[in-house]
C-alpha cells in the first residue's frame, strides 16, 4: 500500500485504535505506546500525504477520499491536539475504569475526524461523521452516572443534526446522481432557489449542531463537563471544529452561488454573534470549572462562526486562525482543570483555592491560555481577534463589532474567576498534600501547547500560510500583502510588528516579575481562609466564607433576569412532550386481548369501506 495515500493513513489511524485495544490485554505500557505512536505517526504522515484521490465502492455507492488544502488545515488542528491528548490520558486515565475502551474510542474518534476531513463525497463524510459521533458518545458516557444523561443528550442533538445532513444528502444524491461534493455543487445551482435554501438550511443546521451554535448548543455544557478531561480537550478543541469545517464547506463549496447565500450568511453571522454574547454571560455564571470552559467554548465557536459567515478573505482568515488557536488554548485549559481534578478530585470553583504554590505549572498553563483567550498580546489569541475586528469593520458590521467586543470583554470576567478561584487566594489546609502532576505525561502536553500559543502570537505566519492555501482552495482571492511571518497589515496601511511588541512586553514583564519577586514575595504572611474572626469568634466549618462564592453576584443580579428564559428549556420541553406523547400512545395497547380483536375488526371494516369507496 502506498504510504503517502489516504487509505494507508486511515488504516494506520483506525488500525492503531484496534491494536491499542487488543494490546491492553497484553500490557498497559504496550497499549500506551501504540496509542501514542498511532497519533504521532498519523500526524507525521499528514506532511507526506499525496495528492491522488482514492475511490472505493461500498453498498452501491462510490466513496471518494482525498486531501484538499482546506481539509489539511483542519487535519492539522486535529493532529496538533490529538498527540497531547493521548499523552495526557496516560496518567490521567490510569485511575479510571475500562481504559481499553477509552483508548479504543478516543483513537476511533481521532481517526474518524481525519476521515471526515479527507472525504471528497458527502456519504463518506456522513459515515465518518457518525463514527465520530458514536465514538465520542461512548467517551462521554465513560464515567457513568450523570455522564450517561449528558451523553444521551449529546447524541440526540447530534443525531438531529446528522439526520438533517443525511436528509439533504439523500435528496442531493437523488438530484445530482453523484455524491461527490463537486458534482453536487454543480447540480445544486440548477435547482430552484427554495429547494436550495431548504437543502443548505438542513445541512448548515446539521453542522452547526456539532459546532454548538445557539440554539442547538444545549448538549455542549453537559457533555463537555461530564466527559473525561483529556478527551474534553479534544472534544471542544477539535471535534467541534468539524462543524465549522462542514459549514465552511457548505457555504463556500455548495451554496455560494445561490441567491439566498448572502442573507443566510448574514443570519449565521448574527447567530454566531448572539451565541458568543449569551454563552459568555452563561460562562460567567458557572461555578464548575468544566462547565465554565464549556460555555466559553460555545462562545468562542460563536466568534468563529461570525468570521466564517461574513465570507471576506480577512474574516475567513480570522475564523480559521481562531479555530486553531481556540483548540490550543481550550485544550490547555481543559488539561489544567483536568490536572487539578486529577490531584484534588474537584472541579467546583467554590471549593478550590490557592493552588498556585502546589501546582505552578498548571497555573502557568492556565495563565497563558487565558491571556490567549482574552486576546491580549503577545499570545496567539490576539492575532485572531485583531483579524476578526478588522474584517468586521471593513465589511461594515459595526453592530457585530460591538457584540463581539462586548463578549470579548465580558470573557475577562470568567477567565479571571477561573484562575482566581483555583490558583489564587489563600491556600487551604486540605490541599497541603497536593503535588504538581507528573512531568512527562501531564506537564509536557500543557507546556507544549503553551509554547504553541506563544509562537503563533509572534509568528502568526506559520498558521496563516496554510490558511491562505485553504482559502485559495475555497475560491477566495488572497492578497498576500495582508500578512507576513510576524507582521499584520491592513487596508489602511497600518501594521503591527508582533516581534517588536513581544520584546517590549517581554522586557516589561520580566523586569516587573524580577522586582516583585525580590521585593514582595518574601514578606507575604501565610494565612488560611479560616484565619478570619467575626466578632471575635472563629467561624465554624460549615459557614463557608470563601469569597469565590457568589463571585459575580452584583453582575449576575444586573444581567441574568434577561437570560431567565433559556432556549435549552424549550428544546427540553419539546423532548419531554414527545416522550409524554409516546407514553400516552402506548396505552393503545391496553392489555385486553379483546380490545386487540376490536382493532382488527375495526381495521378490516375501515379497509373494506375505504377500498370500496376509493373504487
Amino acid at each position, binding site marked *: 500500500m502506498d504510504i503517502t495515500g489516504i487509505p494507508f493513513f486511515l488504516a494506520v489511524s483506525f488500525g492503531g485504535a484496534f491494536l491499542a485495544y487488543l494490546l491492553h490485554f497484553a500490557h498497559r505500557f504496550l497499549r500506551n505506546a501504540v496509542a501514542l505512536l498511532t497519533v504521532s505517526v498519523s500526524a507525521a504522515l499528514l506532511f507526506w500525504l499525496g495528492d491522488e484521490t482514492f475511490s472505493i465502492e461500498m453498498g452501491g455507492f462510490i466513496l471518494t477520499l482525498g486531501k484538499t488544502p482546506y481539509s489539511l488545515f483542519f487535519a492539522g488542528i486535529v493532529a496538533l491536539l490529538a498527540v497531547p491528548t493521548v499523552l495526557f490520558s496516560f496518567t490521567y486515565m490510569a485511575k479510571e475504569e*475500562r481504559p481499553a475502551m477509552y483508548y479504543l474510542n478516543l483513537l476511533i474518534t481521532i481517526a474518524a475526524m481525519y476521515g471526515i476531513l479527507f472525504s471528497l463525497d458527502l456519504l463518506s463524510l456522513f459515515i*465518518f461523521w457518525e463514527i465520530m459521533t458514536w465514538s465520542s458518545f461512548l467517551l462521554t458516557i465513560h464515567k457513568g452516572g450523570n455522564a450517561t444523561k449528558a451523553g*444521551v443528550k449529546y447524541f440526540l442533538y447530534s443525531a*438531529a443534526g446528522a439526520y438533517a445532513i*443525511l436528509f439533504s444528502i439523500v435528496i442531493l444524491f437523488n438530484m445530482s446522481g453523484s455524491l461527490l461534493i463537486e458534482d453536487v455543487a454543480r447540480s445544486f445551482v440548477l435547482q430552484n432557489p427554495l429547494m436550495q435554501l431548504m437543502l443548505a438550511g438542513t445541512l448548515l443546521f446539521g453542522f452547526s449542531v456539532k459546532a454548538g451554535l445557539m440554539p442547538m448548543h444545549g448538549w455542549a455544557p453537559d457533555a463537555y463537563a461530564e466527559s473525561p478531561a483529556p478527551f474534553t480537550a479534544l472534544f471542544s478543541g477539535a471535534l467541534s471544529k468539524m462543524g465549522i469545517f462542514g459549514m465552511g464547506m457548505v457555504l463556500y463549496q455548495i451554496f455560494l452561488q445561490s441567491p439566498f447565500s448572502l442573507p443566510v450568511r448574514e443570519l449565521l453571522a448574527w447567530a454566531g454573534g448572539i451565541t458568543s454574547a449569551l454563552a459568555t454571560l452563561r460562562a460567567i455564571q458557572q461555578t464548575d470549572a468544566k462547565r465554565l470552559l464549556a460555555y466559553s467554548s460555545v462562545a468562542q465557536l460563536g466568534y468563529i462562526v461570525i468570521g466564517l459567515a461574513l465570507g471576506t478573505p480577512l474574516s475567513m482568515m480570522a475564523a480559521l486562525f481562531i479555530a486553531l488557536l481556540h483548540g490550543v488554548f481550550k485544550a490547555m485549559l481543559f488539561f489544567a482543570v483536568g490536572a487539578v481534578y486529577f490531584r484534588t478530585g474537584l472541579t467546583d470553583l467554590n471549593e478550590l483555592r490557592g493552588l498556585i504554590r502546589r501546582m505552578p505549572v498548571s497555573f502557568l498553563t492556565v495563565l497563558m491560555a487565558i491571556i490567549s483567550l482574552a486576546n491580549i498580546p503577545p499570545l496567539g489569541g490576539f492575532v485572531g481577534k485583531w483579524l476578526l475586528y478588522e474584517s468586521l469593520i471593513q465589511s461594515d458590521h459595526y453592530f457585530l463589532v460591538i457584540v463581539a467586543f462586548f463578549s470579548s470583554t465580558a470573557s475577562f470576567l470568567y477567565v479571571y474567576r477561573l484562575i482566581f478561584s483555583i490558583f489564587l487566594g489563600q491556600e487551604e489546609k486540605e490541599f497541603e498534600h497536593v503535588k504538581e502532576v507528573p512531568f512527562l505525561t501531564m506537564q509536557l502536553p500543557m507546556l507544549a501547547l503553551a509554547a504553541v500559543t506563544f509562537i503563533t502570537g509572534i509568528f502568526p505566519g506559520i498558521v496563516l500560510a496554510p490558511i491562505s492555501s485553504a482559502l485559495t482552495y475555497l475560491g477566495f482571492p488572497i492578497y498576500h500583502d495582508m500578512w507576513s511571518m510576524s507582521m499584520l497589515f491592513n487596508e489602511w496601511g497600518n501594521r503591527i510588528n508582533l516581534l517588536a511588541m513581544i520584546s517590549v512586553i517581554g522586557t516589561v514583564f520580566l523586569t516587573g516579575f524580577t522586582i516583585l519577586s525580590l521585593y514582595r514575595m518574601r514578606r507575604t504572611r501565610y494565612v488560611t481562609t479560616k484565619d478570619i474572626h467575626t466578632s471575635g469568634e472563629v467561624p465554624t466549618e460549615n459557614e463557608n466564607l470563601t469569597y469565590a462564592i457568589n463571585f459575580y453576584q452584583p453582575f449576575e443580579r444586573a444581567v441574568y433576569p434577561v437570560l431567565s428564559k433559556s432556549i435549552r428549556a424549550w428544546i427540553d420541553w419539546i423532548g419531554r412532550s414527545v416522550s409524554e406523547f409516546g407514553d400516552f*400512545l402506548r396505552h393503545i395497547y391496553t*392489555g385486553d386481548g379483546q380490545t386487540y*380483536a376490536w382493532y382488527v375488526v375495526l381495521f378490516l371494516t375501515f379497509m373494506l369501506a375505504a377500498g370500496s369507496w376509493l373504487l
Partner: protein
Amino acid sequence: MPELFPLSPVHYVAAPLLAAFLLPLVAKLSRSFIKILPGLTFLYVLYVSAVLFPHALQSPIIEQIAGWAPPLGINLYYGPMAGLFASLFSALGFIVWLYSLTQMKQEPLDRFYILLMMLVAGATGIVLTGDIFNLFVFMEITAISAFSLTAFLREDDKAEAGFKYILIGSLASTFVLLGIAVLYSYTGTLNLADLALSMEKVPLSVRVIVFGLFLVGFGIEAEIFPLNGWAPDAYSAAPAPVSALFAGITVKAALYALARVTILLFPFAGSMALISILGLVTLVISELAALHQKNLFRMLAYSSMGQVGLAIAALGLFTAEGVYAALFAMINHAIVKGMLFLAVFAMAGGSANLDNLNGMGRKKPVLSFMFTLGAFAIIGLPPFSGFWSKLSVLTAMGQTGNYIMIAIVLATTIVEATYYLRATGRLYLSEGSPVESKTPLSAIAAVAVLAAGILWIGFFPGSIDEILTAGAQDLLDTAKYTEGVLKD
C-alpha cells in the same frame, strides 16, 4: 448419497419434519439426543442452503411435489428471494439452537425443540411454497408453534400472552382462509402463478375485498399497526431465543407472504401506497410506544414492530430499489434484533426490567459490547449493517421523491436512538444489579456469530448486494414467476 437423495428445496421442510417426528422416539433412547438432533437438522438444512442457493441465484428452482405439474399439484418456488429467506431462517435457527443448548433449561425440552424446529420449517415453507392454500397451511404450522412457544414458560403471565396471540392469530388465519375461498370460487385454482394469470376473472370490487382480507390476515402476523396488539405481549412472554426467532423469522415470513401475494395478485398502485403508509404509521407509533418502556423485551418488541414498519414502508414503494431496501432492512433486522434478544437474555435473564442491565459493562463485558453494537446497528450508525439498510431505504424513498417519508423515518430514528442509548448507558453505570452468573461459551458464540454478521455487512455491504438485487428482481418480475411455474 447425493445420487440417492438429490437435494431439492423440499428438504427444507422434510428434514425438520422427519426430525420432529423422530425426536420423541430418540428421546426415549437417550436424553442427550434431544439437544443434538435439532442442531444436526439445522446444520443439514444449512448445507442444503449452501448447495442450492447459488443455483437459485442463477435461475429459480421449481419443484413439483408428488409429480403433479401446477396448477394440479403443489409446487415449491425456490428463487433468489425464497432462497435468501430460507437460508436466513436456517442460519437463525441454528444460532438459536446453539444458544438454547445452555440457556434453555425449562422442561419439556423435547417439545421445545420440536416446536422450535417447526417454527423454522413452517416459516421456510411459507417462503417456498407456490400454492396459496399450502401457504395457509404453513402459516398455521408457524402460528401454532409460535402460540405454544409463547406460553412455554411457566411464569404467571405467559399463558395470558399466549391467549392473546392465539385470539388474534386465529382471526388472521380465518381472514386468510376466507380470502382464499373467495379467490377459489372465482378462479377455481389455488396455485399462485395460475391465480395471477386468472385474476381478471375476479371483479375489481371483489379484488379489493380480498386484498383487505389478506392485508388483515398477513398484517396480523407481520405486526402492522393496529393489528399488532399481540406482539409486545408475545415477545416479552416467550423465551428470549424464541422472541429472537419471532423477530427474525415469523414476521419476515408473513411479510414475504404479504409482499408476494400483493405483487402477484393485487398490483395496483393504491394497494402499494396503502402498504407504504401503514408501514410508516407502524414505524412512528411503535417507536414512540417504545420510548417509555421499562420492560426490556417489550421495548425490543416495539422496536421490532418499528423496524418491520420501516421495511413495509420501503416495500410499498414498489420499485426495485424499494424492494431491495425492504429486503435489506428485513435481513438487518433479523440479525440485529435476534442478537439483541439473545444478548439481553444472557445478561438480564428472564426478568426483563431495564434496571437489570445496570453495570453489566463490568460483569459481562463481551455481551455488553455486543448489545452496544446491536443498538448502534439498529439505530443505523455506520459502519454497521443497519446503516446501509437504512440508507438504502432512504435513497429508495428519495428516488420516488417522497421527501416527507425520509423526514419521518429520520425523525423516528432519533426517537429510536433515545431509548436504545438509554439502555446502552445503563450498561456502563457504576452501580450494578446483583445478578451474577457465568454465561456459557456456546451462548456467547451464538451472539458473536450474529455480531460478526453485523460487522461483515457493515464493512462489506457489497457482498450481499447481488443477492438482494436478485431477490428484488425475483419479487417484482411477476411474468417470470408465472412463466417459470406454469412452463408445461
